[in-house]
């Protein structure tokens, strides 16, 4: 089927991972950071499937299913945390959470 060398496929997965990493580092909106994590997890799973198809083993696809599970659990908990953050701080800026101490409660 695909006669491309494995290096180029891995390079593509690496580029995808790099895109997600740059997005994670550059954006401060926490929803975009979570989306960048999704891109990175997806590219990591892509490497597993590439390796699995290279050596003709089903293990790579099994690992993809596990990564899918981890990603789903991570996204559900992360989005619930984002909702709580928005209710408490009324912002989605990740730098707004720099304080360990909750100033709002002290003001009230």
């Amino acid at each position, binding site marked *: 089927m695909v006669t491309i060398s494995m290096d180029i496929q891995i390079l593509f997965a690496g580029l995808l991972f790099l895109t997600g990493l740059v997005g994670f580092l550059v954006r401060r909106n926490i929803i975009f950071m979570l989306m960048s994590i999704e*891109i990175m997890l*997806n590219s990591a799973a*892509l490497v597993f*499937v590439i390796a699995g198809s290279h050596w003709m083993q089903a293990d790579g696809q099994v690992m993809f299913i596990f990564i899918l599970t981890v990603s789903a659990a991570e996204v559900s908990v992360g989005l619930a945390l984002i909702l709580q953050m928005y209710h408490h701080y009324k912002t*989605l800026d990740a730098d707004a959470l720099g304080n360990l101490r909750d100033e709002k409660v002290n003001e009230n």
Partner: protein
Amino acid sequence: MNAIFFITATVAIISSVMAITNRNAIHSLLYLIISLLSVSVIFYILGAPLIAALEVIVYAGAIMVLFIFVVMMLNIGMEEETEKGWLTPKMWIVPSILAAILLGIFICVLQVFHADKTGPDIIGPKEVGVSLFTTYLIAVEIAGVLLLAGIVGAYHLGRQQKKVIHRFLVKTGSDKKDVT
């Protein structure tokens, strides 16, 4: 096949870059869906049809819907946006081009695979299922526990917490109000 791989990889990279550079959260999520769909095409031509289907169903179908629900609940991305802005061509022309490329590739892949369906290097769902439920059985159970923890955590965190104010604090607060 090689041309399909390169075109799809380009679409995936472009849509990922657009997803992380866009300012509007909903547009960014739609670009991310295009990226996931193109990665799914790559899975398909790599000989992993089950994984391609799972990518579309779970990633683009379920996880992205969760994201969109949260973005819409938080009401962001609608700040300086009117419906007039949505109808301008520059909003939808790039995603349309990317999605049209993917559609063309999809048709092309279907034609090619119709010709020789039984490629020797396709790892079908049967091998994956056998490996999943024999070799990796304990990992499947651990993944189930992880999903349970995810459910409980998301339920606990997503609940609207009732504000409980201690009665002494309420009294002092009302006293202060009376004084002022």
